């Protein structure tokens, strides 16, 4: 009784703090979980009741986001980042090590509810992995001594606030700076420029600059702002997409950590230009460690007149920014799914058209841009469009931040003018023996050495910034398998080709990777990939097969050397299927197993199933011996 009234009070207080607004539902559920470690049916019912939503809507949100739990978790919840770059750094070994230390299985909660350990998609710490999250806070540079300490701290129930601060220290690793990272920016300069010259003049500078969305899709920025400016309606919104979920990218984290003022300035500039008074930053849940400092920066900007009412003393220039935290859903990087999530819902991409510039947040005209894009707009407002356009290529003006990780000596952030070659980046980051690059993340391009002279820009290799290096000693297929599993985890499940296709692709990749595949499986991957690309509802499903398809073209030998000699292998292992019968009958003698792979019977069955395969003399004899 006492317990449930405490739960009711806790939830009541949290919901009240958010003014019972349904758009705050995801934020409310995050906080409820912080207090209670998981979202019990009773908690979900309570939240629904307090906000006035039907319980199934709250349940929908609770089940959709991977950082929200509808089953009990430990008071210390540890999630190991499981990107391929973490794997290269030995995360699986460390994961098992910590599980052994704490006596808990992977994906499980210890019986005393003290600790749970699992894995999660890339946490954006690829340049300082292997990484994990503890109760959502980033733990970079893990190794065995550190895990020993962490196990002690957990067993002694030491609160996170008393853990050594250096465990949580995330470094920026800026290796190469150009016009965005390298030049000083005086806070407020872009806002003074727009007040002095007017919105129209700033829009003309943005047109002149040729700036395109830096998230990777490359939509012309000025067109987006103009479209939103021209859209009818008094209420408009500015949304900064800081849901940097593409595995291998972490440049937005560095911008939010080191250049938050520049990003907020770009958002405020946008607010002035399009006529919006409210902005949102959608910060990926993995970056929650930045939340306090970002809120402090916002507060400082309010105090010095760069945010809030009458910005810079200009009556009517009102703009403020609120930060929403995501909760582990890659699909929310898609702008309409992000808007759904901002509205407190589960993040399924909307039907487009209409586009956010006319029907965005709460169906009002909304500009959604990436962190880097907003930062660049502030610079263009002060330095001019021509200055920006003097860098880069004809179709891709300016510079691009790359997040470099994997097998190289100097992982970190590199800013280059658009048009830089892959080779140049490899030289600069000290990747001496790269056998391939995964560019723009698992949804991007798989690059082999014969393509190292290709250029990073929208007209050649478009990228949001992820650049993962695979050295010669790596198995490219380890990466492909990791990516295939990633998309299974992140598919939202709305449309058939992505929901089912990502799992089918994972199963095919697993089958070949474990040495059970045949040529027909590679053909099947191509067929499946074509369907997913053409038919999926959003960019997630349309790009999910890219790495498999690219690698089939660029690294055919990596796939082929895993194949069995036949053209067809069943997905079904007949002998394994009999294991339950063996267990029940208590038998495990040879007679309880099917004949092994090399037995005449099995070879004969395969020959009959595979009539196109060339036949050896031995096999011909075998067939000839048939009755």
């Amino acid at each position, binding site marked *: 009784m006492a317990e449930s009234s405490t739960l009711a009070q806790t939830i009541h207080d949290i919901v009240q703090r958010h003014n019972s607004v349904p758009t705050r539902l995801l934020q409310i559920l995050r906080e409820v979980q912080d207090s209670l470690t998981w979202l019990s049916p009773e908690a979900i019912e309570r939240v629904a009741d307090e906000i006035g939503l*039907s319980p199934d809507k709250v349940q929908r949100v609770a089940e959709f986001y991977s950082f929200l739990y509808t089953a009990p978790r430990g008071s210390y919840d540890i999630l190991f980042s499981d990107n391929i770059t973490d794997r290269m750094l030995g995360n699986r070994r460390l994961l098992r090590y910590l599980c052994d230390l704490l006596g808990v299985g992977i994906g499980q909660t210890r019986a005393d509810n003290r600790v749970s350990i699992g894995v999660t998609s890339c946490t954006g710490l690829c340049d300082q992995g292997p990484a994990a999250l503890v109760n959502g806070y980033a733990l970079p540079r893990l190794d065995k001594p550190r895990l020993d300490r962490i196990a002690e701290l957990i067993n002694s129930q030491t609160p996170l606030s008393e853990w050594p601060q250096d465990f949580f220290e995330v470094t920026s690793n800026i290796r190469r700076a150009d016009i965005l990272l390298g030049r000083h920016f005086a806070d407020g300069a872009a806002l003074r420029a727009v007040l002095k010259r007017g919105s129209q003049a700033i829009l003309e500078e943005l047109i002149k600059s040729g700036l395109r969305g830096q998230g990777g899709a490359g939509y012309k920025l000025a067109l987006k702002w103009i479209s939103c400016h021209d859209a009818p309606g008094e209420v408009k919104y500015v949304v900064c997409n800081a849901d940097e979920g593409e595995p291998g990218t972490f440049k937005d984290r560095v911008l939010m950590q080191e250049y938050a003022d520049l990003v907020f300035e770009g958002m405020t500039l946008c607010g002035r230009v399009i006529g919006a008074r409210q902005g949102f930053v959608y910060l990926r849940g993995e970056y929650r460690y930045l939340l306090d400092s970002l809120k402090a920066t916002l507060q400082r900007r309010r105090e010095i007149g760069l945010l809030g009412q009458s910005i810079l003393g200009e009556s009517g220039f009102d703009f403020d920014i609120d930060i929403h935290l995501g909760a582990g859903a890659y699909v929310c990087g898609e702008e309409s799914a992000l808007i759904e999530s901002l509205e407190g819902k589960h993040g399924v991409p909307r039907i487009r058209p209409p586009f956010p510039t006319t029907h965005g947040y709460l169906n009002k005209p909304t500009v959604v841009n990436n962190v880097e894009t907003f930062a660049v707009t502030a610079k263009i407002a002060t330095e001019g469009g021509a200055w920006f356009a003097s860098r880069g290529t004809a179709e891709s003006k300016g510079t691009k931040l790359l997040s470099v990780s994997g097998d190289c000596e100097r992982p970190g952030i590199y800013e280059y003018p658009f048009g830089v070659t892959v080779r140049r980046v490899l030289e600069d980051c000290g990747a001496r023996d790269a056998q391939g690059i995964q560019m723009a993340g698992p949804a991007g391009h798989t690059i082999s050495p014969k393509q190292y002279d290709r250029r990073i820009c929208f007209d050649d290799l478009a990228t949001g910034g992820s650049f993962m290096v695979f050295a010669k000693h790596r198995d490219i297929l380890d990466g492909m398998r990791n990516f295939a599993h990633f998309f299974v985890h*992140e598919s939202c499940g709305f449309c*058939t080709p992505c929901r*089912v296709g990502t799992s*089918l692709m994972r199963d095919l990749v697993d089958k070949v990777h474990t040495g059970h595949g045949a040529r027909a499986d590679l053909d*099947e991957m191509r067929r499946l990939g074509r*369907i997913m690309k*053409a038919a999926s*509802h959003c960019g997630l499903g349309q790009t999910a097969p890219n790495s498999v398809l690219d690698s089939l073209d660029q690294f055919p030998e990596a796939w082929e050397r895993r194949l069995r000699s036949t053209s067809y292998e069943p997905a079904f292992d007949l002998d394994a299927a009999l294991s339950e019968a063996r267990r029940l009958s208590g038998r495990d003698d040879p007679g309880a197993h099917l004949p092994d792979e090399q037995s005449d019977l099995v070879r004969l069955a395969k020959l009959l199933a595979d009539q196109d395969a060339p036949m050896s003399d031995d096999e011909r004899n075998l067939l000839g011996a048939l009755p």
Partner: protein
Amino acid sequence: MSGEPSFTLDDQPVPFQDGQTIMEAARVAGVYIPHLCFNPDFAPHGSCRVCLVKVNGRPQAACTTPAVAGQVVQSEIEELQEIRRGILEMMFVEGNHICPACEKSGACQLQAVAYYVGMLAPRFTYFYPQRTLDASHPDAVIDFNRCILCELCVRASRDIDGKNVFAVQNRGLKAHLVINTPSGKLGATTFSITDKAAQVCPTGAILIKNRGYETPIGRRLYDRQPVNVVGDVAQVPESEGGRRHE
């Protein structure tokens, strides 16, 4: 006629009114585009992706793409039929669809569309998921093995019946249909077989009890004529082998 805007669908002109999608305009014009989650009584959903067409060369869902004058739309081409077959195959391997044992066989839109696009058997590997059957309701059965997540029952119950009986929960391949009661049982809801939600299922997931095998196999809705002639099972009256309540 000359003032009415039109696009071409497989080289035939199709007139449309402003605001119509390609699917709606084609339906009004009597041209069939294969579909499952689309139902003209509801806002387009765009989730099954079976109605994929090429619009000026780009693949798009016909049910969510606005008609625009002069558009060149392709539908009945082998490239698209192959993709549709693939999508249908995905639906068949995702659930457990045992057509010969299903009461809806022959009057099932999923099966009929599969035949229409030339899918005879799925090539993909079956998932064989563990799903349940709910017979707790006195007049209806839900067999979750056959659900393809078109959300038509969800939409009908919420938007038309005002009961909000169904929902989809979780994400990815774990996404699944649920009944909105603490027990998760249909029998605990106010669901009625006269509800719109009882009439819209394009598969055999929602079945009416005590009505089994009224029409012999071979004389059922799509046994007589293919889906492009007969249309949606939800639009055909019960007396003619469909699901529409009279």
